[in-house]
């Protein structure tokens, strides 16, 4: 892919901090700070898919929600026209909401049970183009339904009359009806079973190719992310551990956390699965209320040294960036074998 002169979105030092107050705290006690996302930088080019992976609670969803001001974030998220999305008032943000749409995790829960799917899909259209006539709206909704592989005559049906996969298609139709440039998919397939996952993923890839969409694809299923992403970003405790082109990351993971994640992916071949060397991670995800000093991963890292506790590793590298004091390939394990199967 040729590099366009201007990225669609460039995020610089994005932070999301929640203040927590405990029940019974006095008004003057300082609130506890939860750093859900602490200093994330990335750029996203038009038409590119960025996969974001990480375990539960590492800030994947919060990061995405901060971009569209669903949760308050600080830092910069510069859109392709030079505006900083995070500095916009909610009124000024409205214009950009049509450009950035979102697909949610639970397909049925993301559709209002009291509305027909026609009304659901038309809602963003009516919000952003209030001048459109009734017939025009209906026509566009029907076109969109066909584009996502549903029958146009189902427009008057209700969400509970559809299966999970169909509901997710409706969710995608709702997101695409306003012609966004960026689609944020927040674990769009984790609530679906495997065969349906493949259908939805392929639909997303087809639509992305046809419409030239950029995507931020959040998931914890590494094989899904590999299939769909151009680049993958690994998050841990609100920090970027490693960013690399998809193929490169899976073939040559440099960060111990990425290596551990990849080794945990099951291989659908019992022989290979048994032969595979797992890299078990000790302990639990530390609390984001009191993250470890230095490198946040050091408490569970097999390579941790004294310097890891004192110095925060910076994200180094151009295409393949790693935030680790001791990056490198895993010694003595047949990485190729593991990676092939992913």
């Amino acid at each position, binding site marked *: 892919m040729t590099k366009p002169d201007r990225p669609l979105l460039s995020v610089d030092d994005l932070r999301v901090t929640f203040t927590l107050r405990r029940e019974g705290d006095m008004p003057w006690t300082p609130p506890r700070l939860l750093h859900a996302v602490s200093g994330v930088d990335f750029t996203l080019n038009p038409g590119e898919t960025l996969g974001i992976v990480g375990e539960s609670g590492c800030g994947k969803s919060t990061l995405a929600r901060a971009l569209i001001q669903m949760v308050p974030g600080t830092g910069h998220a510069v859109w392709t026209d030079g505006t900083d999305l995070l500095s916009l008032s909610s009124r000024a943000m409205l214009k950009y909401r049509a450009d950035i749409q979102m697909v949610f995790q639970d397909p049925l829960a993301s559709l209002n049970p009291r509305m*027909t799917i026609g009304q659901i899909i038309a809602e963003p259209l009516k919000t952003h183009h209030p001048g459109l006539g009734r017939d025009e709206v209906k026509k566009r909704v029907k076109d969109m339904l066909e584009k996502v592989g549903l*029958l146009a005559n189902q427009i*008057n049906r209700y969400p509970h009359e559809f299966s999970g996969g169909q509901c997710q298609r409706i969710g995608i139709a709702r997101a695409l009806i306003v012609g966004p440039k960026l689609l944020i998919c927040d674990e769009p397939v984790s609530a679906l079973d495997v065969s349906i996952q493949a259908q939805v993923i392929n639909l997303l890839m087809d639509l992305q190719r046809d419409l030239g969409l950029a995507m931020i694809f959040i998931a914890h299923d590494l094989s899904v992310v590999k299939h769909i992403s151009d680049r993958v970003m690994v998050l841990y405790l609100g920090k970027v551990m490693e960013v690399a082109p998809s193929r490169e990351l899976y073939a040559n993971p440099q960060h111990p956390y990425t290596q551990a994640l990849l080794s945990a992916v099951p291989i659908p071949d019992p022989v290979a699965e048994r032969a595979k060397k797992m890299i078990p991670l000790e302990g639990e995800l530390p609390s984001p209320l009191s993250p470890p000093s230095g490198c946040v991963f050091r408490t569970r890292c097999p390579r941790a040294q004294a310097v890891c506790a004192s110095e925060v590793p910076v994200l180094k590298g151009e295409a393949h960036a790693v935030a680790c004091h001791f990056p490198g390939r895993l010694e003595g394990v047949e990485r190729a074998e593991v990676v092939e199967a992913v």
Partner: protein
Amino acid sequence: MTIDTIKMRRLSESLAEGEVRGRSLWADARKRFMKNKAAVAGVIMLVLVTAYAFLGDYVAAYTYDFKDFAIMGHAAETGAPSWSNGHYFGVDNDGRDMFAVTAQGTRISLMVGIVGTVIAVIVGTIYGAVSGYAGGRTDGIMMRIVDILLSIPFMFVIILLLVMFGRSISMLFAGIGLLSWLNMARIVRGQTLSLKNKEYIEAARATGVPAWKIILRHVVPNLLGIVAVYATLLVPDMILTESFISFLGLGVQAPMTSLGALISDGAKTMQYGTIWALLVPLFFFVVTMFAFYFIGDGLRDALDPKDR
């Protein structure tokens, strides 16, 4: 395996043509409601009572403000219900035709119940949904206002209003309406809090739908089930309140009357032998109560099948 291709083609054609009409959750609920015998019986009873209340005047041989002086004074002997003299439900001690008077009283009672409930539903739903959706400090202030109003003794305020501004039906409506929405607002706010975090609300926010539209389009329709159930149970409450006030003698003014006032009159003159003057309004009162409670139960079962 052979597949009947012609049949299959017809099936696919019939699937492709014409818009399929979906079955909404409301339609499902209606179906479940119609299967509930007690609830349907409640609806039928309520329709009959309402028909009597609003059409009874045309059937009655006398008007509600007519006094039959021929019977007054010896109502116990000659005022019993009879077809021949046109007093179908008898005559009370004051010579009033019970048929006409009860129709008029039922009308007032139903109206008090329904007007009070309509105010409760509209004000309570909007207030509760706004408070719950806004959350934070706004929610706190709005709910504390409700708490303060709720801590004022309800009956005392209505009685005070009626005493200060004179007994009038509009004052009664105002008094009941003013206080009936408080509990509704609390219930709706609680529901809104749990609805607020649903993904479809988030989806609407993410796409930039303004807050008032989210409340009207996404929040309110999804809590109407609870509101409908609570409203049907609120109607008899309102009727009871009005009856109690009328029983105290502070309700509607003669010659207008209400079920509560009629029951009160009937109870006072029971000793003179005109027992029908008590039984007739009591019958309509009880039937109305039962009808509303049955409908409320039926609605709850129909709208929330999971909770059964």
